[in-house]
């Protein structure tokens, strides 16, 4: 039977366990053709006017299913995500570390240093949320218009408790943590051995 002293020790440890990387990201995606994509999503992509081929994928996550359009535009990789009804969920644009303002980057760095004994940033994306038309204008102009939210989605690989993990972090524009999820990577035994 746990006494009060035991509860005082046990309860914070229990909370720490929950507040660690308790969310998990495991996605399965398949290529789909345009005629399998919701009409609303196709219209939004048409409005973006990408001049390169757009590849469509259907993604099955642990909690939801989405459609994703991937393409390259003005030298940058774009990923536009839609719900199964065709509503725009977000636009993600691949970027580099130097595009993140220093104060935000420093804040992120402090958090990452507290979570990992060593780490590196594997993938950085700017995430835009908001009304499709306003978002489109915002992205094209390079100015963050009212009603558009800008976050940073960063995949970090690093050492946690003597093993290496890949964790996806979502930070606000100011560098505050919104959420983190451990990525379940596919096994690559077939090309290693």
């Amino acid at each position, binding site marked *: 039977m746990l006494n009060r002293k035991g509860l005082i020790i046990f309860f914070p440890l229990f909370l720490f366990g929950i507040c660690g990387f308790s969310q998990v990201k495991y996605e399965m995606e398949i290529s789909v053709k345009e005629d399998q994509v919701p009409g609303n999503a196709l219209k939004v992509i048409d409005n973006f006017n990408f001049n390169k081929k757009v590849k469509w994928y259907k993604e099955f996550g642990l909690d939801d299913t989405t459609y994703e359009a991937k393409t390259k535009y003005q030298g940058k990789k774009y990923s536009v995500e839609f719900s199964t009804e065709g509503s725009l969920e977000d636009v993600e644009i691949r970027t580099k570390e130097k595009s993140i303002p220093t104060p935000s980057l420093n804040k992120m760095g402090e958090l990452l240093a507290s979570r990992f004994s060593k780490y590196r940033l594997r993938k950085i994306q700017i995430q835009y949320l908001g009304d499709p038309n306003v978002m489109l204008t915002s992205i094209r102009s390079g100015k963050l218009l009212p009603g558009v939210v800008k976050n940073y989605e960063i995949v970090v690989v690093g050492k946690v408790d003597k093993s290496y993990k890949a964790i996806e972090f979502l930070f606000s524009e100011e560098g505050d943590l919104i959420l983190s999820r451990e990525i379940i990577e596919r096994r690559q035994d*077939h*090309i290693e051995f």
Partner: protein
Amino acid sequence: MIRQILHILFVVSCAFQLVAQSSNELGLMSYVNVNKKFEKDWNLNLKIGNRQSLVRDLFGEYPQRGLENIRTDFSLFATQSIIFNQRIALGYITIIGDGETQHRLIQQYALVSKFDDFSLSQRVSVNQIWKKDEDLRFRLRYRIASSIPLNGQTINPSEFYLKVSNEFVNSWQGDTYDLEIRLAPFVGYGISKMHKVEIGLDYRINSFLVDSPTNRLWINLNWYVSL
């Protein structure tokens, strides 16, 4: 994509036929590869394989046809991650064939990189090979392999993928040096999260630097189990 696979297989088989003046062999190779993950990024890899000859001296005056068991391999590797996508491994292989047993010690470094549409593995290994009544043989190997999902950006259950590898094997025994070049295209299928099967060709050419080349073409079947 299917057209590209057929093209690669056609080129490999043509290259094999073009060297009719050399020694040529056609055979079957099959491997079961079991990989078990442990805590703190330790892995154990157990591989059992078999080789059988179908035809020796394929383009010669008197080709020797008939299924003949050449050898059976048993290998065990322990691997550890040194950085997220980089692993070192120590392994031991015993090869039984032709009434003899060969022992090999392996030291290996592998870097596996995940890109948007494919994965790339680069592997360097050093081998020491012992066989009765023969000088110790050393090998230095470099292999590059790519895995390309044929549906989407990752290999999921019930999906096909393409795997192509190219390996250079430097071998020293006494005063003798040889170089073997290997090219292996495969088509793979993810049966489940744990199981993958592959079928393909493994073309090898060696002894071409100072002598008539030896060509071997293996029809290869692999089964990977990830525990």
